């Protein structure tokens, strides 16, 4: 049965072989998997994928398709994903891209994602998102894909990409994971890991326009058994970014020989500062949204462990940038951090591991100057009281 199929396929030329292969794959996945023969159909599927989609026949060298045929292949894949049943989409995807990635399949994946982006194929993008979640956004394959996308869509052209602009309406899950991924790709530890302005612009716009994006993955965690959260990464951007951008501004303000470059640098720094402020607001609003959606969320978006990581990294950044305790940017940074902590706590997104809060508090106390807001927030957290709307405060008498 399987052998016949393979033989038949081998007789065909591209594109017929691939088309037929895809149909067969769909047929396989559409069947409810019987406990009796899971392995065999899986194995068959894998084999078909290897040979007729990736064109990796055992013993033969990798066949590379000419560009036009490759394009055809990609189109066929997209169509196939669109038409497949919901439950089969990801199975198919994994069958193709699941096994250990090599250069070819990575490249193909990148191209597939590009095509999906340009034709707004949400099926493919959703599958990619789930794949990223499963792999973990920080791991190499995801990071590589992310880097390629950033290069193509944020760095290549100056104007903002229209494709990116409408991405949240095509696949919010993809955007969610993408954001998570870029925060790891450009961690803003120092001046060399600053995200490109175009990218930052997109992320800011996304979050400000659609406050549901950040929790998209967590909301579907029960369906996919895995999830990712961009909140820690974005928080880190806002916190560390405050210091770094200030540092950049200072650098750009120092007298140098080349005025033109200096102006450009200063402009860049100012733009970054503005974007970060807007991003911070979007972050808070996204957290606020979760308060109304708390029942759908099975996981925390940010934990105290994340907070610890961030605070530690902040110490390093401050040291590297020569920040003094009385510097305004330090307090701004701490205040931003406080705001995120407070709103996430009130919205029920903050996971508090035992004992970690005290650890956090002692680091703050030991390593940072007193900041009124941070103190207020920590007191609130320790108090443990849930927000009670009826609490009256003394009226303000000017």
């Amino acid at each position: 049965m399987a052998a016949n199929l393979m033989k038949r396929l081998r007789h065909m030329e591209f594109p017929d072989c691939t088309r037929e292969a895809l149909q067969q794959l769909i047929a396989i996945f559409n069947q409810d998997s019987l406990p009796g023969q899971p392995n065999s159909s899986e194995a068959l599927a894998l084999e078909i994928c290897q040979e007729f989609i990736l064109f990796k026949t055992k013993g033969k060298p990798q066949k590379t398709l000419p560009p036009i045929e490759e394009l055809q292949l990609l189109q066929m894949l997209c169509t196939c994903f669109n038409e497949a049943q919901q439950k089969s989409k990801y199975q198919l995807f994994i069958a193709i891209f699941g096994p250990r990635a090599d250069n070819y399949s990575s490249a193909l994946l990148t191209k597939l994602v590009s095509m999906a982006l340009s034709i707004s194929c949400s099926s493919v993008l959703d599958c990619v998102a789930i794949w990223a979640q499963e792999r973990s956004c920080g791991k190499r394959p995801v990071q590589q894909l992310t880097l390629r996308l950033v290069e193509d869509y944020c760095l290549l052209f100056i104007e903002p990409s229209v494709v990116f602009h409408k991405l949240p309406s095509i696949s919010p899950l993809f955007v969610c994971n993408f954001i998570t991924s870029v925060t790891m790709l450009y961690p803003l530890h120092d001046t060399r890991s600053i995200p490109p302005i175009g990218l930052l612009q997109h992320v800011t716009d996304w979050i400000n326009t659609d406050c549901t994006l950040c929790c998209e993955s967590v909301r579907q965690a029960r369906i996919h058994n895995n999830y990712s959260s961009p909140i820690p990464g974005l928080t880190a951007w806002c916190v560390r970014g405050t210091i770094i951008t200030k540092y950049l501004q200072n650098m750009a303000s120092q007298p140098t020989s080349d005025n033109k470059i200096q102006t450009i640098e200063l402009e860049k720094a100012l733009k970054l500062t503005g974007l970060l402020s807007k991003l911070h607001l979007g972050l808070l609003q996204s957290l606020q949204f979760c308060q109304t959606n708390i029942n759908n969320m099975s996981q925390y978006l940010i934990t105290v462990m994340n907070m610890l990581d961030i605070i530690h990294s902040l110490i390093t950044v401050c040291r590297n940038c020569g920040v003094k305790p009385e510097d305004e940017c330090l307090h701004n940074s701490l205040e931003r951090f406080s705001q995120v902590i407070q709103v996430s706590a009130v919205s029920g997104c903050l996971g508090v591991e035992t004992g970690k809060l005290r650890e956090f508090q002692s680091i703050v106390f030991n390593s940072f100057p007193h900041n009124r807001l941070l103190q207020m927030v920590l007191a609130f957290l320790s108090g443990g009281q849930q927000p009670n709307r009826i609490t009256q405060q003394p009226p303000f008498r000017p």
Partner: protein
Amino acid sequence: MASSGDNSVLSDAEWLVMRARGYAKTDPWAAKAWLITARTLFPGSFLIQFESYQIEKAAKNIKDAASHLEDMLKNFQNEASLWNEVQSILGALQKETADSQSSFLTEIFAAIPTHVQCQMLLSVADKIGDVLERCRLLLLAMKKFPNLVVEHGLKLIEMLSIEESRARLSVVNCYRKLFVCDILPLVLQKNRPMTIPTIQLFIWLQRAVEFYISFITQPNTMDTPLSPDMMSPTKALSKKIINIPGLLERESQILDPWGNLFRLLQLVGTHAGWEMEPDVFTKSRDYQWQYLLSLYNRYKTGGITDEKRKQILYTCTILFLQCLYSYVSHVDADNFAGVFSSTGLTAPVVLLEGFRSDNDDTSSQPQVKRLRQDRSQPNIQPSASIHNSSNIIQNFLTAFKCFELLHSSDELRREFITLCQNWQMETWSWMGHFQTDMFLYQGLHQKAVAQIQNFILASKEKMKTRMSLQLSCCFYCLGNFSKACEVVMDTIEFLEMPSEIEEVKDNVVVSGQGRQLLLLQCLDNEILPYCIQLLITCIKEKAFSSLSNDMLLGHLLILLQYDWPKQDELFNDIIKKIRTQGSFTYNLFFHYVYCIDILEEFALLDTQEGGRVNLDIMSVSTKAISQQRTVTRGLNKGVKEDFRATLEKQVQNLGEPIPNVIHRFLKDERDLIIKNL
């Protein structure tokens, strides 16, 4: 801005607000971020909520501002600054010209869910002490939320009526206006019929009629100086600035008071369970009258109940008032025309008795007797200068018929009189004009005389002329010719004479069956022919009776020149009479007679063929001359030659226009004329 240490006098909440405010101009996102955080730390803090609202307002984010406002209204009922804000929003809603600020506030209001809007309006209205303000707000609320009308409408009406009686104002006051024009229609529309007791309905209706009539008949007072574009006649009538004290200018405007009143009548009728035809008051007068009559007859045959009588009473009365007003605004335009009835006429119209042409004179009875017998519907002939005469006449007749209908049964009359008393109709001076005309129309001249004499002393100019005319007309109809001529000559004295004998277009002498009335405009060139004709007719009566004398004939001759040769029949009669008499003495002849035809005729009279009439018409009586001269031969010949010469000279002598001659005659010989009558 330092963020730690100083400012420790501020509470945490205050400090958060201060931090947020600090970013409001430089970094609005940061400001918002601070406030979001602040709200989570102090959810019960009004200060923070209000600050959030302010910041959204400043950033023109309507939806966000509205949602903050809604939250605050729910949670902070007692905060003064919140209510101040609500007041300003409601104030913006009521403003007529929307500037950017008020339209923005209006948008915020619109973005709040409707039940919250309703709440806002009601709670603020509750707190307001000033009745007028409260009324305005409740009116706004009721217009936006019709379901409030049933609960609040009646209370509001009561509140207004108490306030009005407490303030003891004249009828056209702010409370009454709001009640009649704004609230009452709303209450009647939104309540189900038969739920309000009819007594109440009728009291309301009476007050409404009183208001509208008083409003419509307000004298024209222009408080603002006329701008150039207002000087044009059409515009002057439409720019009557009406200001009801207490109300804004736009609230004082009532664009269609009659329409409003009729619609109100309709609503009241629906509530009282009347059968009514819906658009009766938009149809022609004829139709309206027929409708009313058919209603009356229908009820009469079925037996008039109290309810049905009320319907007749009110429908008829309001129709009567409208016809009356339309008619009177053509009579006394200066005082009563204005925004609501532009007449397009420059002088008041006047109703007068016409003169019968002698052709119809089949019976030999004197004209006076004939008038007394002829009580069937007189015909009204309008002057051609009155372009909407059919309207005017129809209004008059309809008003008259309505008045008669209202007096057709004891009960109706009693109820109508009660209404009149309630409205203090005796203070309505315009009724007086109608009553005069009504008496005239009915031929009740004595009553008309009494009525006119009541009013004439206080009247001036055009109205005085009008009344004098009617007075002299009535005296004439009553047979009191000397009084009639006396009054009419007084009138003529003040008229302007035309520069030449114009072709008198209208005939004041009308032919036809029955009594003929005239509707003229009180323009000099229209009245004058009438006056002359009146004089001629009065003098004629006596001149051809047994009490005739030559003076009268002479006067007639002079007057006939006015519209010569129109009345040549009469002239022929006069000449015949003179010929029959054989002699004629009138020494004023050459002072006033210039018409060639007349002179020729008299020349003829003097001759053999003419009849050799003995004419003593020189300025100095021939008798006197004959006494002067010594008796010589050829005495008469000298006289005769004088006569011829004078005749010829007279022909060439016509210096002034004939009307002026007549004017002079009437002025100078007034006493003489009266003595002879």
